[in-house]
């Protein structure tokens, strides 16, 4: 007992020296200095900063923004639907369907998106009409607008990625879940809709969110076929006033706004399908 008290006395006399982090201060200072240098460079740069807000809200820029959003949503939406179908084919018992899915993914994932957009856009060079003999026939030029070509190029490529994402999601759900669903008499469709897909979502949503953010930026490739998305809109504006960097910065700001909103949406989706 007595020795215990003595030990405590000794312990209380000891002074605590907190661990110091000198390198945090050094690296922090370096980063702040670099940022300050960058800010100074920007202020010295020959950019009409005061013109950027005007381009940001320019009617042509709004048109480009709207087209970008519509294209990105349509391409991603279509890709998700196609991706689910291809993933189901990939997992099906039918060997023909399985091989078709493998070939589909190999082709549309294997070619650069830019190339795919150009191929669709120039389809009229090799097929003058799109037709099902005896049913209908339309000139390819009429159908294959810049929007449709961009939609196909972006959407089909993305659908190949979505197929792999959905397949991974479906495979991640325990076999016992399907058996339990079967055992209460669920049909395959109901099992997929009520049991397997909701659980696969946890695996499917994060990479899909990343892909959608890529898709938003990927729409800029449609500028090569003169579809008026943001980059093409910026070029349209600057071709008249030659303020190239100013319009590009305005477009850049819109991309960051869209990507930020998409990230927030992804966060809430992940939470909604998170573990219980």
């Amino acid at each position: 007992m007595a020795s215990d008290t003595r030990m405590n006395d000794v312990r209380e006399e000891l002074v605590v020296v907190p661990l110091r982090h000198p390198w945090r201060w050094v690296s922090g200072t370096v980063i702040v200095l670099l940022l300050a240098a960058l800010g100074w460079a920007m202020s010295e740069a020959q950019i009409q900063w005061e013109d950027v807000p005007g381009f940001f809200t320019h009617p042509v820029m709004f048109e480009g923004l709207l087209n970008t959003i519509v294209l990105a949503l349509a391409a991603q939406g279509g890709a998700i639907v196609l991706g689910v179908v291809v993933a189901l084919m990939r997992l099906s018992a039918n060997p023909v369907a399985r091989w078709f899915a493998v070939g589909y993914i190999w082709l549309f994932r294997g070619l650069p998106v830019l190339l795919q957009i150009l191929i669709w856009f120039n389809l009229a060079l090799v097929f003058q009409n799109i037709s099902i003999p005896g049913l209908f026939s339309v000139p390819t030029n009429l159908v294959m607008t810049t929007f449709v070509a961009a939609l196909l190029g972006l959407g089909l490529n993305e659908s190949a990625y979505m197929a792999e994402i959905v397949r991974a999601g479906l495979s991640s759900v325990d076999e016992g879940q399907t058996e339990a669903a079967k055992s209460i008499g669920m049909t395959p469709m109901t099992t997929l809709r009520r049991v397997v897909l909701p659980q696969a979502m946890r695996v499917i949503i994060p990479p899909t969110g990343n892909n959608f953010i890529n898709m938003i930026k990927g729409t800029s490739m449609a500028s090569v076929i003169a579809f008026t998305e943001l980059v093409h809109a910026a070029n349209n504006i600057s071709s008249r006033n030659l303020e190239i960097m100013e319009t590009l910065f305005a477009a850049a700001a819109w991309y960051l706004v869209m990507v930020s909103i998409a990230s927030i949406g992804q966060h809430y989706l992940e939470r909604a399908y998170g573990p219980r």
Partner: protein
Amino acid sequence: MALVEAIGVRKSFGHTEVLKGIDMEVERGEVVCLLGPSGAGKSTFLRCVNHLETIDAGRIWVDGVPVGFRASGGKLHELRERDAAHQRRDVGMVFQRFNLFPHRTALENIMEGPVQVLGRRKAEVGAEALALLERVGLAEKASAYPGQLSGGQQQRVAIARALAMKPKLMLFDEPTSALDPELVGEVLDVMTSLARDGMTMIVVTHEIGFARSVADRVVFLVDGAVVESGTPSDVLDDPQQPRTRQFLAKVL
């Protein structure tokens, strides 16, 4: 006619024959316990009764209906998966690893079948589901997710989920094998009361005590064949076959 009639059921996985011609009859209201060493084919047989596996030869009838087939014009037509699903409505199954739907609450798990499969109204199913939860002693856990329940509680919800379909037959595949010893009793109690209420049950189990007190008949399976069957006292206390004796010596 017996509720379940199995004749000459054979099943192979690849080149290994797992069921080598099983004959079995289960009368209405009868409780049959399937015993046997690991790999004997107990689970496989149970899964065949519910058409979770197809059989290679023989036939299984449940309530006069050939499992996995439709009889018409003097022929048996193999069922599409959608129609097979329709047949499974009448047979409940309880799994070793519970297999509750983790994204739905206990109550929602129970309502899933009646609402999604039978297309009944949620309001009327909800009351029934609550009554079932009460019956398995879990009324206060209605809004808990499976992840928040103990193994024993999950298995009792799983039993309630199967009962919600008002099945004619209940299949249990080692329902207590994945449970901590102190949780086994609560699940066996629910099964015992179910048996007392006249449910027809086929139970794969290693719980000899349960088989002795609840089963009307015990069937002993080894290497895909029925070795011995009879009343619990006959098979468990006075086994005639050496394989049965060996097995019982190990588990008793």
